[in-house]
């Protein structure tokens, strides 16, 4: 039901998430933000079981901020991703595993942009593009077909729009709007919410 997507360019990462917060068959909220700001240049996109998502994401968020307070500098995106994965893995075989699927997107001064895919079994993969949810089945092939590592920002947004149009066309569920953000060396930028098709 929920959908996350990330596309990495040569000096930016573009991420988008749907805005629906659902409970059974009812949309409780149409403008729900599924992105959590871990630091000035790192975003964590989190979907999954009710309650687990917010609790886990806030836990990671606070710990990343605590690291900065203790040490005076921030965790890099790669370090944050591995920290997140380790936490997921530690809880996986406990009595309270977190059923969450994540995308972590960030920009590092030294390594550049990075997009990390994590799932509820605590897999971690750095990828040029990634998606979560049923919508991923429909859109990963579009990304495979049209993605190039040297995408410009406009081309990345167009590629994202292609994916969202496909969802609107073929996905059985209505996902009317998406929050879109871009991370580059200047930080996190909000882009216009993408409404695709008739609202």
């Amino acid at each position, binding site marked *: *039901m929920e959908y996350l997507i990330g596309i990495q360019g040569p000096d930016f990462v573009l991420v988008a998430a749907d805005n629906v917060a659902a409970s059974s068959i009812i949309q409780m909220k149409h403008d729900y933000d599924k992105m959590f700001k871990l630091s000035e240049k790192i975003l964590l996109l989190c979907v999954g079981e009710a309650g687990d998502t917010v609790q886990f994401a806030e836990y990671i968020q606070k710990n990343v901020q605590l690291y900065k307070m203790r040490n005076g500098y921030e965790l890099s995106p790669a370090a944050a991703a591995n920290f997140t994965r380790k936490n997921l893995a530690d809880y996986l075989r406990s009595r309270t595993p977190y059923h969450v699927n994540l995308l972590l997107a960030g920009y590092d001064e030294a390594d550049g942009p990075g997009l990390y895919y994590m799932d509820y079994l605590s897999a971690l993969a750095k990828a040029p593009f990634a998606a979560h949810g049923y919508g991923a089945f429909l859109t990963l092939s579009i990304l495979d077909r049209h993605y190039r590592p040297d995408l410009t920002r406009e081309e990345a947004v167009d590629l994202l729009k292609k994916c969202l149009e496909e969802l609107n066309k073929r996905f059985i569920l209505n996902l009317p709007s998406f929050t879109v953000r871009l991370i580059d060396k200047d930080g996190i930028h909000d882009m216009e919410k993408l409404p695709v098709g008739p609202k």
Partner: protein
Amino acid sequence: MALSSVLRSESADFADSFNQPFAHGCGLKQAGLGFGEAVDDSLNFAVKPLGEGDEPERKIEFLHGTTTLAFKFQHGVIVAVDSRATAGSYIASQTVKKVIEINPYLLGTMAGGAADCSFWERLLARQCRIYELRNKERISVAAASKLLANMVYQYKGMGLSMGTMVCGWDKRGPGLYYVDSEGNRVCGDLFAVGSGSMYAYGVVDSGLRHDLTVEEACDLGRRAIYQATYRDAYSGGQVNLYRVHSDGWERVSQEDVLQLHIKYESEKA
């Protein structure tokens, strides 16, 4: 904060965040607000979001035999609830108070297990009072709902059944949060909870505007609950209406659904 640590010490220990508390044998067949656990309850169909698990059955679950709703508008928050309690298909009571007065400026609604709702909201009232004493200012609606959500999250999966809306007025204006025992906590302008919620959504969605007058907003809330009780077997009794404004909440009215029916029918004619 697990229940045991909340009751034991005032300075809640955040370090042992995932201490599994002693789970009482939860009797799921409470004569509460119709969490229909009766074996022959045919109205039990549930759809599981994110079918990543391996559940072979997919059912739509209309939980919590009740209808409660709340919405924000320019003059505050309207809270409207029905008053029927069911145990399976037996109507246990038609005069249940489903709005819980947490403190003079915060209200909570009740859907799901009656004991769960009233107990946890009473505990929330205690935590809100402690906050007030420590910080010398009223607790915000966001913080109160977060306290409640964190408390019940500890018991996730252990059979708590609670779908509540925390409504109040704080320095940011009217506040409305939906919190449930699954772990959801969502801020919004309009929520309806319970088996009759879909019917209520239909009426409120088509009539809600930000610039309603107090009278119009009360009528809308009343009408929505009435329509839900008309269609949903598990909702009925009376419509209890509250309004939250900048000075706190006030009880607006209590009207029997049958009287409302007669009134609306005569207006149609």
